[in-house]
């Protein structure tokens, strides 16, 4: 068995006195689809943000493809990663945000082209071709010249997915990507994610409140509670016969609400 795609090793994250994640250990295999569920404030978003290097960790190491991400080897010792190191390793990871974070002054196509041109150094023509293909794939072939303000929420989120994919990441992170959408627009985004999962070699880690989708889509579901993984397992097991009392309570509360 090769090394995991992502490994959180004893990762601790604190904000002041608040310990948000307490010695988290989590391995994610290549191409695995993992859903993260749990109550508000349990640290789900924080897990993704740490892996995207948007947050520094207080303790532990995050590995990507067997290489330390949060640290680097220097004279035989592990030291906190430099900006240069981060920029190199971070390229393997892409993220889609709850509130899209599209660049409002650029068209859908320009949003997708910006990073391939300026980070990967692709010639404009090639970047444009790649971006156009991706926009076609997410069903927005006819919206390439539209600005974000001219798009619906679901369309914006699909542009954001195409934009992240344009960097050819190996790991894609999704943080409640349908939470800011009107209910009737959720399906179109989930369809795109579903298609990504089946047609591409991608490791996917998603925080979601869509229990139905998590159940159908993921290989494994992790239930976070109080800064730890309280329970994890295949979706059938976790949703139908959870071992942990907290999981049961959480699921019944969510099912009642939804």
């Amino acid at each position: 068995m090769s090394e995991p795609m992502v490994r959180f090793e004893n990762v601790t994250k604190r904000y002041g006195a608040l310990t948000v994640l307490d010695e988290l250990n989590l391995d994610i295999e290549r191409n695995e689809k993992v859903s993260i569920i749990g109550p508000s404030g349990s640290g789900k978003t924080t897990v993704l943000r740490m892996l995207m290097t948007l947050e520094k960790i207080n303790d532990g190491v995050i590995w990507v493809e067997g290489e330390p991400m949060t640290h680097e080897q220097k004279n035989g010792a592990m030291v906190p990663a430099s900006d240069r190191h981060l920029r190199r390793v971070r390229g393997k990871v892409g993220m889609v945000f709850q509130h899209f974070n599209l660049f409002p002054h650029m068209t859908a196509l320009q949003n997708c082209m910006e990073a391939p041109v300026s980070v990967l150094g692709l010639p404009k023509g090639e970047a444009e071709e790649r971006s156009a293909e991706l926009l076609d794939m997410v069903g927005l072939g006819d919206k390439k010249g539209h600005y974000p303000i001219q798009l619906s929420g679901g369309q914006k989120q699909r542009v954001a997915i195409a934009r992240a994919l344009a960097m050819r990441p190996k790991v894609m992170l999704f943080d409640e990507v349908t939470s800011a959408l009107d209910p009737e627009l959720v399906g179109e985004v989930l369809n795109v994610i579903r298609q990504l999962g089946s047609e591409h070699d991608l490791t996917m880690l998603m925080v979601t409140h869509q229990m139905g989708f998590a159940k159908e889509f993921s290989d494994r579901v992790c239930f976070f509670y109080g800064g730890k993984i309280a329970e994890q397992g295949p979706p059938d097991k976790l949703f139908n016969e959870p071992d942990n009392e907290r999981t049961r309570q959480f699921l019944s509360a969510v099912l009642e609400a939804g």
Partner: protein
Amino acid sequence: MNIWDWYYVWEALPYLYRGAVITVQATLIAFAIALVLGLAFALIRQSNNRLVNGAMAETVEFIRSTPLLLQIFFVYFVGPQFGIVIPAWVAGIGVLGIHYAAYCSEVYRAGIEAVDGGQWEASIALNLSRSRTWSRIILPQAIPPIVPGLGNYFIGMFKDTPILAAIAILEMLQQAKNFGAENYRYIEAITMAGAFYLVFSLIASAIVQAVSFWLNRRYHLQ
């Protein structure tokens, strides 16, 4: 004696014209300095290095809380005592530019801080370099909304140019005054200078509005 005599209007015109050229040149050059230097100040203030950003904040605060005239005197009169001789024109325009750069940097800062933090996060997630994030993502969103704020300082600076007379730069108001003194006749020249300041201010504010409109459209911001 007439209250208003057209003879003096014609006589004063060449004086005022020479002064107006100086005033407009000084304003344009000094404001160009203020725009560029103000942006530099604002960017330095965003530095993660506490020392750098604190020193910049103090400098801006210092410039803003001492009078413009004092700063001009300092550079022009105190400098030579230490062997630093700066021509009046350079000292005047330079200090005017630096003084207003301090004010402009605060306007830039407000614009930069108004950009949604999600834009930074998306830029990091896409692995854009810091300089690229500034030039392609943050500044194009930060600057269009603050053009009116910068424009106010443009007009403010224009109205401050008579201060240059204190170091013997013959800007327009000084020319009007000299004309008055030579002819024992002030009303026409001073009034004409006033009319010019008014017209220039109106033109300037129309230009500011046009630039603001154009930039907001260019970058598709509301």
